[in-house]
Every structure is written in C-alpha cells, then in structure tokens.
C-alpha cells in the first residue's frame, strides 16, 4: 500500500473470540479492507482485521455465520493518512 489518504465512511468492531476463521467476510467486503490476522484467538482460529477504507456497508455482518461484526457508519466521512507498505 502506498502512502496517501483513504476515505473512511465507517468501521467495525470484530468479536475475535467468536470467530471460527471461516474467511467468508474477506471476499464479501466490497472495498476489500478485511484481511485475516497472523495471530490466533483463544481456540486457535485466525480472525479478520480491518484496514482503512470501511464504508459501513454491513456486507461482513450479513455473511458472517458467527455474528462477529458490529458495524458503524460515520456521520461524516473521515480522511485517514495511510503510511508505507507494512
């Protein structure tokens, strides 16, 4: 990811302990801002982590079989600086 700004319209809180690592949310996310973690949760599953650029569209919430997502929409979009590639 190159340096620059990303418009963020929403965010999610992810219940990482409820996650069973099915990865259905990853392709479901239209702006592609969910990536699976490298860490694992208490039962050994990897879980999604949020990158900047969420639109609050709730696609992840809709496809998640384990009810892991709380989705929020910002009243006003926020511009976020993103640093260099990890």
């Amino acid at each position, binding site marked *: 990811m190159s340096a620059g700004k990303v418009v963020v319209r*929403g*965010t999610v*809180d992810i*219940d990482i302990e*409820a996650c*069973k*690592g*099915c*990865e*259905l949310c*990853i*392709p*479901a996310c*239209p702006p592609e801002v969910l990536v699976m973690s490298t860490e694992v949760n208490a039962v050994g*599953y990897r879980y999604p982590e949020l990158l*900047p650029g969420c639109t*609050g*569209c*709730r*696609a*992840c*919430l*809709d*496809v*998640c*079989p*384990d*009810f*892991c*997502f*709380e*989705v*929020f*929409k*910002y*009243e*006003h979009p*926020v511009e*976020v*600086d*993103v*640093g260099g590639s990890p």
Partner: protein
Amino acid sequence: MTVGDEPVRHQVGEKTPHLLQTGEHDLCPGCGEPVAIRILLETLAELGLTTSTIGVVGIGCYTAFARTLDVDLVQALHGRAPSVATGVKRMQPDKAVFTLQGDGDMVNEGLQEVLHTAARGENITCVLLNNGVFGETGGHMTATSVLGQRTKTSLEGRDAGYHGYPIVIGDLLARLEGAAYVARGSVQSAGAVARTKRMMRRALETQLAGEGFSMIEVLTMCPTGWFVPTASGPSYMEETLGQVHVMGELKGGA
C-alpha cells in the same frame, strides 16, 4: 496511520439478531445456516411479527437453534414440521407460522408432508435450508444432492444410474395451485444475502395476506458435508448445487 478526533458514528444493523438469545453456537466454521437464520429473524422483526410468530423446527444441524431462537417454538420430528405447522396455524390463524427444515428433513423424510401442505394451500411459510447433505449425521446423500456430488453414501459421486436424480423441490411445489409464493435464495455472498432477504420478506408477506402456501428455500454452505476447505464453500455452491437448484423466484413475487 493517523486518525483525527473520535468521529460520530451510529450502528448499522445488529451484531446478533435480537431474536436470538445468544449468538454462540457449535455449527461448523463457514456454515451457511446461521446466515439464513439471521435473514429470517431480521425479517420477522422488520415485519412486526416478534410477538405473533410461532415456529416449527425440524431435525438437523439447525435444530441447535431451537434452544436459542427467542420465538415461541414447537420442536417437530424429522420431516414432520409441515403437518405440525398446519395444526398450529389452524388453531392460531392470526399468528405467523413458519417451519425451519433442512433438505434431508423436508425433501427426504418429509416430502409427502410439504407437498400436501402446499397443495392444501395452508397459510404457512416453509423455510428450507438446503445444503444438499445430511449434515448432522455426518454428510450423507439427500434427495437434493446433485450428480457428481461426493458424500458418504455416494463416495464416487452421485451417479444417476445407481443413485437416481436430485429432486428440485421448489420446482415441484411451484406447480401446485395451493402454493402462492415459492423462491430460492442463497447465502454465499453479501449480494445473495440481500436478494434472499427480499424473498424472505415476500414469502412472509404472502402468509400475512392469506394468499396461501409460501416457501423460501435458501442454499447454505456446508464445507464439512461437502468435504471442501471452509473458504471454498461459496465457490463450491455456485459450481455445483447452485447450477441445479437455481436462484430466483419460482412462483409469485415481483
């Protein structure tokens, strides 16, 4: 990455549908059934049916939700939910009555029941969770399993000569005059979920309008029963079950 002051935000949707007493369950990673159940529960709430719904639950993996659905329920036997739902609806005609059944339940054991209930035009809504396998017993062939599908009772893949052909239940039901709305959705993607939610709403609205029998079939992923990697559930569904049990409104609707 820098963020300014904490932005004002409002919640979109619910983490767990409020008609579930808890979101915890022991169904497999990547199972489509909880996704379909969310669609059902959100639709019931949106239609204002929370305190006027009675559900009849069949026997399958989804039976676990009989313990957590915060809806008045009757637990039925494998295949028998439509007749039980008929008795409930005849005695409580002003309530919304649904069945929640899997394909093994509805199309194997209970094929007769759903056909007769639809033919009679009973004003109930049958919700079919179709994953083309008997999930709870470990992955065996059902009447909806497709040709070539490998299960524990069709190890080389379902073969027409030996195992016969799948039953496309929605098509059968749509031919009955008593069936007013028959639709098939799926939950492998957010787009499919959105379309399915509209169908779920139309099915229940059909019941509320007293138009006759309604059925909403939802194709659900079962990577365990399909013996595919969890994340491959959606693509497997689209390539196999979804080619035979095709998404769309089969009767009634827009």
